Each structure stands twice: as C-alpha cells, then as structure tokens.
C-alpha cells in the first residue's frame, strides 16, 4: 500500500511493512515523502527532531543548492535546509 498523503495535514498514514525504507539524502527534488525515523541520539538527531522531522511528518524536497548540497525541505509549513550528510540520518518512505 502506498502512503496516502493529505496535503493539508502535516502527518501521513502509518507505515506498512511493504514500504521499503530509504534515507532522505537520496530523495529527488520535487518528491514528497514521509519521515519514518531519525537515526541516532546525538545532538544532530535531537535538533532534527526538534525542528519537526518527527516520525509520520510529510516532507517535500523543494530544491538543492547550486553545488548539489545542501537540500531545501518544506515541512510543517516552513522551509529548512540541511546538508546531504545530515539528511542521510533520516529514514523516509
């Protein structure tokens, strides 16, 4: 089952085992995906969670900087930029 995204809500449908997890750094510009988890418990992981990248939230990859890094995200109706190395810590589907 594909996740059904509701554009007016920040939160997407619950995960099913059929969804193959991947990380946020591999997501193409323009795609909308759903956060499964943030890996780790260090300062970076906590900051990503505090900025709203919590399990179940929908993220749209809006763009990337001219050299391909960092990436620009839209989530919880605001824009956030993170480096690809940091995006690799976020599991999405």
């Amino acid at each position, binding site marked *: 089952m594909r996740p059904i995204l509701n554009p*007016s809500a920040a939160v997407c449908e619950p995960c099913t085992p059929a969804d193959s997890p991947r990380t946020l750094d591999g997501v193409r510009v323009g795609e909308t995906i759903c956060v499964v988890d943030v890996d780790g*418990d*260090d300062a*970076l992981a906590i*900051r990503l969670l505090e*900025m*709203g990248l919590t399990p179940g939230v929908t993220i749209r990859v809006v763009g990337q900087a001219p050299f391909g890094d960092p990436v*620009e995200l839209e989530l919880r109706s605001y*824009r956030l930029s*993170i480096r690809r190395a940091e995006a690799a810590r976020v599991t999405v589907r």
Partner: protein
Amino acid sequence: MEHLPLGSGPARLTVVLLGNPNTGKSTLFSALAGIPTRVGNYPGVTVEEKIGRLRHAGREIDLVDLPGTYSLVPQGPDEEVAVNVLYGRQPGVPSPDVVVAVVDATNLERNLYLATQATEVGLPLVVAISLADVSDRKGLTIDTAELSRRLGCGVVRVAPPRGEGLTALKDAILEAPAHGKPPALALEYSEADAGRSAAAREAIARYRAIDRLVSGVVSRRPAAPLPEDRIDRMLTHTLWGSLFFAAVMLALFSSIFWLAAPLMDLVSGGVDAVAAWVGDSLPAGAIRGLLVDGVLAGISGVVVFVPQIALLFLFVAILEGCGYLARAAYLMDRLLVGVGLSGKSFVPLLSSFACAIPGIMAARTIENRRDRLLTILVAPLMSCSARLPVYFLLCGAFVPDVAVGVSFLRLPAVVLASMYALGIVVAAAVAWILSSTVFRGPPQPFVMELPSWRWPQAAVVFERAREAAWSFLYNAGTVILAVSVVVWALSNYPQNEDRIAADMQVERATIEARLADPSTLETDRLVLAEELAAFDVPDGPARRGAIQRQSVLGRAGLFFEPVVRPLGWDWRLGCAAIASFPAREVVLGTLSVLYNLSPDDDDAEGTMLARRLTAARWDGTDRKVFTLPVALSVMVFFALCAQCASTLVVIGRETGSWMWPVVTFTYMTVLAWLAAWVTYQFGTWMGW
C-alpha cells in the same frame, strides 16, 4: 479589559521575550521598548544581551530580549543563556516575572514546540502570535480564543508593523501574574521509543501533542499564490538564483568598498581640519606632536572604520530581515564546507576583502561557535583595501610592465591578482588545517531554517547598524587609540639632539659621496639632489627622518635586521614593518619619513616615494635595496601578516578572549615571514 490595581506585585516587572530565530522577535522588541537601554554581551560569553524599558498602565517593565532559540534543551551558548535567564540563573539579570513566547503565525507547529516547553518553566506565560499580517495574506486563520483555552494562558495576535495588538499584549503581560503558571502540556510517551534519550522521546511526544493542540485551531482558506512564492522560486533557481546572488554580493561588496570611500574621506578630512587648526594654534614641540600626530591621527584611524561598519551592518540587517542571508549561506555552503567552514562564513569573508574589521564583526551572524571562531581567525587573510596602496606602489615601481602570454595581460596586474589569490588559498589551507586538528570534533550540524520572505523593518535595520558602530567605537576604539599613541611615541622618542645631528651628518655624507661617484646613474642623481636639498630645510623632512631613525623604533629596526635579512630587507624596511603595527598602510608613511621625505609632500600615486625607493642602496654599497624579489617578498609579507592593531583588538572583543588575537598575530606573522622568505629566496635563485 480588567486591570490589576496599581501598586500590586513587585514595583517593576521583568519580562523576557522568548522565541525561535526569525519570528519577528526583534521587531516586536523595538515596537514595545524602542531603543534598548542596555546592549552588550552577557559576562563571560559572546551572547548578545539586549534589555529595554517600557511603561504601561503605570507599571515599569524591563523587557529582556533572549537570544533566538529552538528548544529549552540547549545546544550551544546562545540557547544556554536563554535557558539560564529564563530560570533566573543568569548573573546580573533579575529573575523573570512573566515569559512572553513569540510564536510565528505562519509556522505555528514548530514555534509552539518552544512555547509549550515554556509552560513547564513555572512562570506566568503569554503567547504572542507574531506576523499575523503575513498569515492573514496566506489565508491562515488562528482561533486565538480556543488556543488560549487549550494552552491555559493568554494568547494575543500582534502585527508590530501596523501597531496591531501591542496594547492588548501589554495588558496581557500585566494580567499574567494574577493567572499564575499555565498547566504543562500533557505528553504521551510512546513505548516504541523506550530505548531513546529523554530529549529525543520528548521531541517525538511533544510534536504529537502539538499536532493535537493545533487541530481545529488553525483553518486554511485557499489564498491566491503570494508574490513571495514566485520570488522564492526564482531566487532559489539554479541559474537565476545564482546570478541574483552574485549581483547582491557585488552590491554589498561595492557598498563597503566604494560607497564608504567618500564618507571615510569626509571623516579623515574633518580630522585633518581639526589637526591643522590645532597645529596652527599651538607652538611646535612635543605637545603639538602628541596631539596632532599621536592623538588626532589615532582618532582618525578609529573613526575612519565607522562608515564601513555601519554600511555593512545596514546591508546585513536588510538581508537578514528579508530572509536572504540564510539563503546566501545555503547557496554557498558546499564551497566552504570543504575547508571546514560553513555557508554562513561567506558574507563575513567577502566583507573582509574591503576591511577585516566589519567582516569579523559580521561573523556575529554565525550561530555556531566553532564556525564563527574559524571564520574570525582566517578573515584577516583576505586582502583588505589597506593592502592596496602597498601593492600598487610596489607593483607599479618594481614589477616590469611586460605582457604575460597575451598582450593585454600585464605582469603587474597578474602579481596584484596573485596577492588576492594568495590570501584566499592560505585562508582555505589554514581553515582546513585548524578544522581537522585543533577544532576537530563531531560534525557541526547545518540544520538551518530558510525564513519566509518579508520586508525588513527599518527600526530593526537602523538599530543593528547603530549598535555595531557604537560598540566598535566604544569597546575597540579606545584600545586602538592607545596603541596608535604608543607607536607614535616609540617612533619619535627619545629625541637626543647629538644623535640626531650625527645621523643627519652621516646621511648627508652618504648622499654627497654617491653624487660624487661617477658610476651613479643619471636618474638616481636627480633623486639624490632632491634628497640633499631636504637637508637645508630647517625642521624639514631630513630632521624628521633622523628623529625616526634614532627613535626606539628605528633602533628596534636595526636590532631586528638579522630577522628580516633573510627576506632581503634592510633595516629601514624592517623598521617600517614594525611601525605599521597600527595599520598596514602606515608602512608607506614610515618609509617616506625614513627616506627623508615628508609624507605630505608626496602625490597620491606615491611616485616620489617610488623614486626614492628605486634609488635606495644598501648602506655603504651600490647594491640596490629594492629588486623584484625584495618587492615581491614585501608584498607577500603584507598579504599575510597581521599588522593591523584594530583587527586584533576587534578579534579580542568579538571572541571575548585576548588569547585569540595573540594566536592570530602569531600564526599570521610566522606564516608571512616564511612565505616572504620562500618568495625572496626563490626569486633570487631564479635570477629575477
């Protein structure tokens, strides 16, 4: 609205403004309190302290603007200070009575993260929904009454640009103590996260609670696409966005490079006029020398930076206010991350090409301590405008004007460009080495909000520029002035008349001997004759030269000659390099005096000095002092050295420690000496 009776509670309320960065907190502060009564750093840390005062309904309110923070689980000194002030643990700041949580209406969920954490502090709370005007245009409606009921505290909509909600907010602040502390938001921790840290579990549970809190409170009606959405698409476009970025940075750079120039001329012209007046009204002597050449020249050397600082901060505040500064950092991050810096280092480093002082001050916009310190340490390596006169003079006089490959590419221009490249390459190398050794640590997160586009607020912009200029004058200016006066004294005293007379006699004899020597070139003869004429002017340049040669500084030059000899320099050059400690461009003035030239006599291009330098010979020989390798080694030295007391003082002020200027001076001087030595030895070996 019900008001508390006057005189109830403490006489004066301490109210803190808590909020995420980019929430319109500074705008709200200006609207409530106007110009802050206290600005500076919290003791021991370089975190900005801003306190203002206002009166409402007969009560005095001290308003503390906390540094922007995302969470009360602090990461970094800014957030630590915010938390300490909030809990009354910050020395010098009274325990707060009321917390005002500023919440961006267009970004409610993430802003409520901090606001709901604030419900757990145990203080009366008021939530100010800022940027209400922007959210209206976006078609967002927030049911403030319902949100207030759910949060259990006052919720006020504010739009400072049009004055909306300010009175209601002040009323709510005065009423808040009577309502007591709000209930903490109920968090449900999930079993699935049991193995994670407390902070991670809190974040997940809090957002779940916030999603419930806002559901039904916010309604969205479809709004026409806003102009800022179209602008945003264009400005982050790979081609148009990059071109626009280049244009903005060019405008920023030219404004501090060229726009500031007339203002700087005005400043130095004004000080010159005062100096002339003082010079005319005082008899010649020690007092006049101290006032005119020591104190007034020192004041001029301080005030002259103010136009650049004010202009740069105007520009930076505008870029920050409209949300472009974060986008500039986003665009440039990849280039700088490779050498251990971050995208936010770009504007400070670019500004340093005009002058390192505003550049180092602009590093305040870098929240990350490590990135900020690294940026400050390498900023003085960017070739600033004070190095240009040195490059121009030496390139023009000693680099042969020949074509390099193609006819229009001349060697002096190539050398000039190489000096800029040298600074950039060395800065990149130093940043990379420092970040992988002394500053090695876990990777610094670059999680950065790209704020929505908005109009910068004039009050905030001007306050930023005024504060930057004032803090420079007040904190750094006094120290810079003291350094200038000390160096002036060292280069003019002691004045031993016997030694001065003897020195003049020796100089005169040397010139006469060279004039008598038939092998002396005809061009040199003209220069030497001019120089000889200076000896007949009473109290003229020849006497000044002798005073300087016999001063503490002149003798220091002789003493240090073995140190500068490997660079191909004679003691006069060493002396000029030491004298240029207050500012690099002083090297030319000092050289003029040492070569019996009055600095005021010289024309703007320094051609008279160039001719004197060309004619200069090693003492007692006919070997030229200034050859191409020597000129190159001087330029390389000045490209990399830290001969700028003002920069070092500002580094001390901005880092809050005198260790960093010492580190900067040491590493840059060692680097400059080594690079100049390599340049001279290589040039000599190549037979240039």
